[in-house]
Each structure stands twice: as C-alpha cells, then as structure tokens.
C-alpha cells in the first residue's frame, strides 16, 4: 500500500468512525449537538476528500472543544485513539517534507503496535490476569458486560483462563507480525475480530471503528520499514 493510498484510506475510515460517533448524539443536548452536527458534516467532507487538510484542522478544533465539554474523553480509549489519528493526519498534511510526513504517519503505526503490546505486557505481569481471575472480575462485576446473562461466563474459570491467555499472547506477539506483509494482514484480521468481540460483549463499538481506522498506517509502515530492511 503506497503512502498516499494509506493516508487517504485512513481519512475515509476516520471520517466514517467520527460520523458513526456523532450520529449517536443527534438526539442529545443542545450544547452537544452544537459540536456533533458540525463534526458529522465535516466527517462527510473528509470521507469524500474535500479540502482534507483544513477539514482535519477543524475536526481537531472540535475534538479539543469536546475534551473541554466532557472534561476529558467521552468514551475513554476510543476518544484518545480518535485524537491520535486526527493529530497524526494533521501532521501529515502540514509537514514540510515527505520525510516528516512519513514520521508523523509512522508514529501512528508505532502507537497502534504499542496499543496491543503494552496492553499485553501489563496483563502478563499481573498475577490475576495470568490465573484468569482478572477476566472473571471483568465479567462478574465490572460495568462492561452488556447483559446479565454474560455475567454467568465468570462461573467458567477454564474458559476465563483460556480467554485471558489468548488475549495476552496475541497482544504480546502482535509486534512480531510486522516481519511480513502476510503476517501483518493476518494479525490485523485477528485484532479486528478481537475488537468486534469486545463490541458485542462489552458494547465497545467505537473502539472497533476507530482502531480499524489506524490499520492502513501499519500496512504502509510494514512495507516501508520491513520490506526495505529485510
């Protein structure tokens, strides 16, 4: 995937993710609609590629206004990834040279990789995660399971243990997928399935769309760095 193709695809996916988020606020409070209706409009412009650079700047201004409005992210990690993708794309458009553009887009790819690896690392060093207890806690009493019936999963310790280690191993091994284009694609497909599961089980639908928006950066980064050095 070329640099230009990856950037453009990221813009389209980011526009879709923002549009999906903002549509969820169409029946919200007036002071929220003042932020989300312009963002919805700008997201459509971003998807069609109309003056992308300035549209991204306006979306960043709205993103800062939302941080102020909610005194932090509305949706935790999903909003943080949204802002990260947005800032990196702005930097790509306003960077003085192709080299700096690549640095900005590469930073997004590195952060995406770290988002899996660090999440795996903090789990593997935690005794509760290694025994499956932490995941049992998530299902048993955290705010995330979308239905009461899902809480029953906490009563299956073997399943919790297997799920815990599946997640830990996948997250820790994710950076190694960068060695080839095929392994990167397979890893990203597994990662997307992981986010899809989280969306179904824990209602984290915004994570699914915004993490996918960052995937083109990794596909480009893999070819740019590893196809050259290996």
């Amino acid at each position, binding site marked *: 995937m070329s640099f230009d193709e990856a950037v453009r695809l990221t813009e389209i996916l980011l526009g879709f993710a923002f549009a999906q988020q903002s549509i969820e606020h169409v*029946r919200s*409070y007036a002071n929220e609609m003042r932020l989300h209706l312009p963002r919805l409009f700008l997201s459509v412009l971003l998807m069609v590629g109309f003056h992308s650079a300035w549209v991204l700047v306006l979306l960043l201004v709205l993103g*800062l206004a939302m941080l102020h409005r*909610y005194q932090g992210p509305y949706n*935790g990690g999903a909003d943080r*990834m949204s802002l990260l993708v947005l800032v990196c794309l702005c930097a790509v458009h306003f960077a003085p040279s192709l080299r700096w553009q690549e640095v900005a887009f590469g930073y997004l790819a590195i952060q995406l990789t770290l988002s899996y690896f660090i999440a795996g690392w903090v*789990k593997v060093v935690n005794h509760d995660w290694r025994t499956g207890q932490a995941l049992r806690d998530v299902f048993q009493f955290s705010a995330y399971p979308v239905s009461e*019936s899902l809480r029953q999963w906490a009563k299956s310790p073997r399943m919790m243990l297997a799920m815990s280690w599946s997640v830990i191993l996948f997250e820790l091994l994710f950076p190694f997928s960068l060695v080839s284009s095929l392994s990167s694609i397979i890893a990203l497909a597994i990662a997307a399935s992981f986010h*899809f599961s989280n969306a179904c089980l824990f209602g984290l*639908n915004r994570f699914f769309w915004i993490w996918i928006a960052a995937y083109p950066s990794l596909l480009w980064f893999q070819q740019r760095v590893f196809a050259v050095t290996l």
Partner: protein
Amino acid sequence: MIGTLKLLIPALLPSWRFFDTIGPSPRIQFTVLSSESETPSQWQEFRPRPATLSLAQMLRRMLWNPSWNESLFLTSCAERLCQQPTPHSEDEILKRIRKGLLTENSQHSIGDATYLQFRLVLVKRDSAHPQQVSFQSRIEPLRSRA
C-alpha cells in the same frame, strides 16, 4: 485552554494500559423524593442492563449504541467522582438521570416525585463487603432543567 491541552496529552502519548487491574466498579443508583427533607430509602439502579441481548441486537449496536455509550461516560464520571469529586461529574450524572426519568419511554417510575438524588455504590470482588457507598449527590429538583 491550558487545561484542555493537558487533556490532549494522554491522547498524543497514550499509556495503553487497558484493564491492567480490575478495581472496584461504581454503580449509579438514584432515588426520587417528594421533598428536600425526605430521607432516601428506595434506591434504584440507573439503566440496569438487560437480562439478555440477542446477536442481532449486538450487531445493531455496532452502528447505533448511544444509550450504552452514554452509560460508559457516566461510569467515567462516577470513577472521577470517586477519585477526585468535581461539580462537572456530579452535574453530568444528575442531568442525564433526570432526562432519562422524564422521557416518555423511561423504564423507571417516578410518580409525583419532585426531587432527585443519586449515590455511587462500589462493587468489588471481596465477598465479605461486596458493596460500599462511596458518594452521595446533592438533592436537586427533578423538573427544573428538563
């Protein structure tokens, strides 16, 4: 402005420590009162999760999930209140409970109550004391800013 830019820093330099430890989880419970001096006795969980959710409902929520995402935001506000109380978090929770109660399709019955209060109950693994009240809000008129 500087405060808002400080909020941007965790997005530019993320920690990515998702679910590193599973701490006590706050639940928002509310009560409706007929006067400001009434002592709260009946607490209800705000937006209790459904008993089950079909696969079709889960798939629909991939694209349309406003109520759940608002509940996640309220959980964030509740966590902020437990760690470092601010008027913003308390106002957000009161405002959204009020709106939830006054909508026509509300699952909660308010009768002729005129005041609203909420509390935060921390749920944790410890079986001896699984629940603990960690915050109680001010009492607010129910219909003042509907």
